């Protein structure tokens, strides 16, 4: 690996910003599409003229406004909490996702992604987010926070296994742990979505759990435990958590595209052309996730855990087996 140049530093600073805005668009899409499926209108794309004085012209950046509003609000600290941990855990999560965003390629563009172990780094950093939430929830000393943390930990056991196994089955097929390398391998041949669909499905289900979409929003189950680990957070700290979630959507989707859809690259076209494809694929994946989100009620935590072990983990393992078999039988193809 060569020394970091000015461009690579600049790009790694720039990439998180791009990821953040992508995350905002994805967040809007989740809200809008689920509203439309429930025969509502969802956040307006164009606000009626008579309301523009109060509500602005468009609601496309709705998650961004939420974050700005929360940043300007007062933060309350519960008197019973462990204050240092309670205050710092959102920032830990934020640092994790910003670094992970710098590693995740947006439409094949990322200097850090070419680092040989970048896939491992991303997976590790993503693991830091739920850990930070668990810490924050436990530090808040609220019964809901504690139960939420407990559930988050249990659910993490469920989704991390298929996530990691599915990612490594792709790494096996590409014979590399570098995300850039995996993209390059797919660029010349078929995307891994077609070559290893089992791992793709397992990965998608795992990121649904990671993003706390239904049916896996157990740690934040509103009617049971209010808001789970984030119950006691408010104001600026909640804004940080919202930012982390926004990043998380973009990173998970970006990683899926990188691993399974060649980062948006279409064989035979320019590298620049991957930008619109990347956006389109991102929106499509979020659409699929939103469909699943609206179609299902919430699992109970034990049901979720059992289901994760029974379906995606098995799928991911068979994906790994498939990857080895593929390498064995079609060595020329890889």
């Amino acid at each position: 690996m060569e020394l970091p140049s000015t461009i690579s530093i600049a790009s790694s600073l720039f990439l998180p910003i791009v990821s953040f805005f992508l995350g905002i668009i994805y967040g809007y899409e989740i809200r809008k599409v689920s509203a439309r499926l429930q025969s509502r209108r969802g956040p307006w794309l164009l606000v009626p003229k008579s309301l523009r004085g109060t509500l602005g012209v468009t609601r496309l950046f709705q998650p961004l406004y939420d974050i700005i509003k929360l940043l300007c609000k007062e933060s309350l600290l519960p008197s019973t909490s462990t204050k240092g941990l309670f205050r710092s855990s959102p920032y830990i999560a934020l640092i994790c996702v910003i670094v992970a965003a710098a590693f995740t390629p947006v439409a094949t563009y990322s200097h850090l992604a070419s680092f040989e172990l970048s896939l491992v780094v991303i997976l590790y950093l993503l693991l830091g987010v739920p850990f930070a939430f668990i810490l924050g929830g436990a530090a808040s000393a609220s019964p809901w926070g504690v139960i939420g943390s407990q559930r988050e930990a249990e659910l993490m056991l469920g989704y991390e296994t298929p996530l990691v196994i599915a990612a490594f089955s792709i790494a096996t097929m590409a014979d590399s742990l570098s995300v850039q390398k995996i993209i390059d391998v797919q660029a010349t041949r078929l995307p891994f979505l077609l070559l290893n669909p089992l791992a793709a499905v397992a990965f998608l289900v795992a990121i649904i759990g990671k993003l706390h979409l239904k049916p896996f929003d157990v740690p934040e189950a509103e009617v049971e435990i209010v808001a789970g680990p984030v119950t006691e957070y408010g104001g600026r700290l909640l804004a940080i958590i919202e930012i982390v979630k926004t990043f998380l959507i973009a990173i998970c989707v970006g990683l899926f595209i990188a691993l399974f859809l060649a980062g948006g690259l279409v064989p035979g076209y320019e590298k620049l052309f991957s930008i619109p494809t990347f956006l389109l694929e991102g929106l499509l994946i979020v659409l699929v996730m939103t469909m699943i989100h609206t179609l299902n009620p919430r699992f109970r935590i034990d049901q979720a855990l059992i289901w994760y072990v029974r379906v995606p983990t098995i799928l991911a393992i068979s994906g790994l087996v498939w990857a080895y078999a593929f390498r064995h039988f079609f060595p020329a193809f890889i």
Partner: protein
Amino acid sequence: MRLGLKEKARAYSPWIFHAHAGGCNNCDIELAACFAPRFDLERMGIQLRNNPRHADIFLVTGPAPKQIAPILRRVYDQLPNPKVAIACGSCAITGGVYNRDDKKPNYAIGGPVEKLIPIDVLVPGCPPRPESIIDGIMLALEKLRHR
């Protein structure tokens, strides 16, 4: 009048905490209807949050019976500033049908809500129709912007 990003963002993404302070539930189901398909409030970026720490608008329904009154106050204090409070329904405003008149108050009512918390917007009706509630929330947004 030019508004800063801060003021705009406040009006663009208000989150509501609904506090049921007694009452007959009619206002509550009309509020539920506000979030249902026909009177979808989410198109204005409004969300119903069941957590006082996340909310900006404190929407109270009901005449605030004596038992819930101190808890209502306590929950109101848990909302981080800036915040506005809406009294929704006739019984939240004056006690409505549960308060015969001011001279001969009902023994069980600790309200009306204005006695317990500072109110910013009044939404009359028994129950107020969803249009009326949306109208009240719009007025509350104007207040919230300048808090």
